[in-house]
């Protein structure tokens, strides 16, 4: 039990109460106090800074709680634990990249949205590296992020891109927010939101504005032999790679080009290009740091509790419009930018079913 509804000091007061009419409550409180508690502290750190008047400011902020494991090229999870929060760098590139990437993603979610870790309550961030042999993938298994080393021909590992690490962690955030069914349009939204938070984490880490950013997911993962920059582009879906062997990036940027398929859980990594581009259009219209307004609106829509698990694009679009209006007002620059963003990809928020 990590959290108790009655704090221990209150139980202690009740337990010590001598009032006869409280005898039963006192007995119950003593029994509760005597029961063993699994206590998991939430990590906190002290931040010191100097304000404008030259005064020392001390404030506490939550800190990540990371554990990296090594699958040692097997396909069994979690593998052998190689680095926890207080441990020094391992010297293993993948393990240390995963550790640092989880840290940067934690910083992003806290700084941008005041979200403390995946569960919003300072819970653990778990990752496994060196999964499988020549394993060309990274995934979220519902509990942890898992990274393969790549086959060396197409992919040179998956921990080398912060946007990919943040993408996987974001799948955890999406699950914790209620989840988006991983099929068809709701699955493509799941993928898109993970891409959005993935690129925003990278932009936040680098201090980039919307017009400075690459808007690429997974830049640098391909080996030099592949003709391509990255896995996906939010700025120009369908242009991330065009390779003799891999083919061309299949992502559409508009509903006119929506791909109907049974592969890939109904094209979740394909049609995510449409909401991805809507976010990009919104962010560049607003300018500045994309996580501050566009990102916050998307985050509010995700965590609004209004989505259900199977929203289509129009329903999610409507949720982003409502979030923008709630945060910045009806007719605000932000709400207009969100509407224009969705219009740019052929999605009409007003077509969504009113819930």
């Amino acid at each position, binding site marked *: 039990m990590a959290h108790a509804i009655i704090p221990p000091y209150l139980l202690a007061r009740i337990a010590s109460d001598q009032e006869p009419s409280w005898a039963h409550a006192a007995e119950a409180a003593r029994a509760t106090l005597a029961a063993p508690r699994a206590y998991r502290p939430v990590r906190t750190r002290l931040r010191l800074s100097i304000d404008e008047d030259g005064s020392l400011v001390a404030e506490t902020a939550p800190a990540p709680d990371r554990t990296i494991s090594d699958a040692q090229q097997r396909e069994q999870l979690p593998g052998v634990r190689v680095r926890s929060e207080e441990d020094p760098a391992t010297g293993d590139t993948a393990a240390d990249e995963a550790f640092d990437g989880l840290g940067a993603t934690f910083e992003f979610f806290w700084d941008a949205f005041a979200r403390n870790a995946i569960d919003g309550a300072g819970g653990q961030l778990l990752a496994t590296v060196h999964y499988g042999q020549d394993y060309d993938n990274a995934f979220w298994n519902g509990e942890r992020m898992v990274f393969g080393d790549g086959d060396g021909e197409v992919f040179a590992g998956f921990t080398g891109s912060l946007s990919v690490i943040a993408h996987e962690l974001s799948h955890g955030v*999406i699950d914790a927010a209620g989840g988006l069914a991983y099929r068809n349009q709701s699955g493509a939204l799941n993928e898109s939101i993970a891409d959005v938070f993935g690129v925003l984490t990278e932009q936040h880490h680098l201090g980039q504005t919307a017009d400075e950013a690459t808007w690429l997911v997974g830049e640098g993962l391909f080996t030099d032999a592949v003709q391509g920059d990255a896995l996906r582009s939010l700025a120009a879906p369908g242009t991330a790679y065009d390779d003799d062997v891999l083919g061309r990036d299949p992502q559409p940027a508009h509903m006119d080009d929506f791909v109907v398929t049974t*592969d890939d859980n109904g094209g*979740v990594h394909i049609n995510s290009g449409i909401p991805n581009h809507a976010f990009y259009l919104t962010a560049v219209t607003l300018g500045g740091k994309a996580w501050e307004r566009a990102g916050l609106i998307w985050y509010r829509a995700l965590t609004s509790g209004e989505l259900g698990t199977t929203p289509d694009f129009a329903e999610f679009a409507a949720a982003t419009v409502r979030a923008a209006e709630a945060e910045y007002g009806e007719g605000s620059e932000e709400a207009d930018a969100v509407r224009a963003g969705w219009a740019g990809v052929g999605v009409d928020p007003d077509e969504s079913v009113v819930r």
Partner: protein
Amino acid sequence: MNPSCDEVPPPPVTVAVTRTGGMAGLRREWRAEPPEDEASTWQSLIERCPWNERTAADAAPGADRYQWRIRARCADEPEQEAELSEDEVVGAWRELVDAVRDWVRSSTEKPSPPRGLE
């Protein structure tokens, strides 16, 4: 019915494995068409797979997992097809998938294949 390949002359076997999904969303396909002298080995690999024992594929939990489609045909038998989540590609299925990928790799290694054609 599992396919049988015992007609005379020994018929060709075809096994196609398609992998979609994954974080990269890349579609990969491997196709094995082994010669007659390997047919019985492949027939046994195919027969050991539980083609008829599974219900509709439920996605593995989480996100960015692979989705597999496996098709096998022996001679004039009807083609068999299965759609599997990543967690289901174990045991006989995994042996068949690995065999197809190994077969493609070894058959393309001979004449200096183009990169990535596994």
